[in-house]
């Protein structure tokens, strides 16, 4: 029962804050709504028993990536008229709601036959062995996907150098 209440609470939060990201005219409002959306999504991840990923979501997304976004928004310092004219938000809100409803209904129709038998809940079955915890996910990362993990570090290095080269202009 607690899972039901928390799921709907977090789901409404995720979609509501996500709709703010799409609909708000001012990018700083959108960025803050995106932070809220990431926090609610971290709650959903905890419900899915992905504890390590939930913490990473808060630290990397809501922390590092969004600081980058807010920093760039402040750096550009757009004037009010450069943000474009206000459009009718009622119609846009109705459109977003219609899109969400259509996608939800069609996804539900598509999923009716996918899980036909009894559902295995690994979070319950493997809870004693630390499903989703740091140790188990760390073993999956370091034992089974060590090469992709190291390539990721290379990717981050390339991204840092690339970001500096692109943004600096003259070197």
């Amino acid at each position: 029962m607690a899972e039901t209440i928390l799921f709907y609470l977090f789901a409404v939060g995720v979609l509501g804050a996500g709709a703010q990201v799409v609909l708000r005219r001012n990018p700083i409002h959108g960025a803050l709504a995106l932070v809220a959306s990431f926090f609610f999504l971290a709650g959903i991840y905890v419900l899915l028993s992905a504890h390590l990923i939930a913490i990473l979501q808060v630290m990397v997304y809501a922390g590092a990536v969004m600081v980058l976004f807010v920093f760039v928004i402040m750096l550009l310092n757009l004037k009010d008229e450069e943000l474009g004219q206000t459009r009718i938000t009622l119609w846009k809100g109705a459109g977003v709601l219609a899109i969400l409803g259509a996608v939800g209904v069609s996804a539900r129709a598509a999923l009716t036959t996918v899980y036909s038998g009894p559902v295995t809940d690994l979070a319950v079955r493997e809870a004693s062995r630390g499903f989703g915890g740091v140790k188990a996910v760390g073993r999956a990362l370091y034992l089974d996907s060590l090469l992709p993990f190291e390539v990721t570090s290379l990717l981050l290095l390339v991204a840092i150098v690339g970001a500096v080269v692109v943004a600096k202009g003259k070197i």
Partner: protein
Amino acid sequence: MDELLHIGPQHYLILAAMLFALGAAGVVLRRNALIVLMSIELMLNAVNLTFLAFSRFPLAPPPPGGRIEDLLHGHAAVFFVIAVAAAEAAVGLAIVIAVFRSRVSINVDEFDSLKL
């Protein structure tokens, strides 16, 4: 009613589909390059949610007593998606700054130099 109250894999997957649609709508509808980048982050998070939902509720139940890390490859995939998203945000925002320098605008409709 029982279907609504008993949270199963479908609920998480439908939520992920809706979040992805929201992000896609943002990419298509908005003209502000920063909002477009943020909507891409929303879509990446929807994909992460799908990975984690299938990790908790696998379609083919694995036999009990196997290695625990064999059940957590979805979590590892989410880890990589988060790392790639961080890199994408850094490079994307750098491109936005570079374009803003030369054109003094972040309206994606005005970035049409390659248009014939």
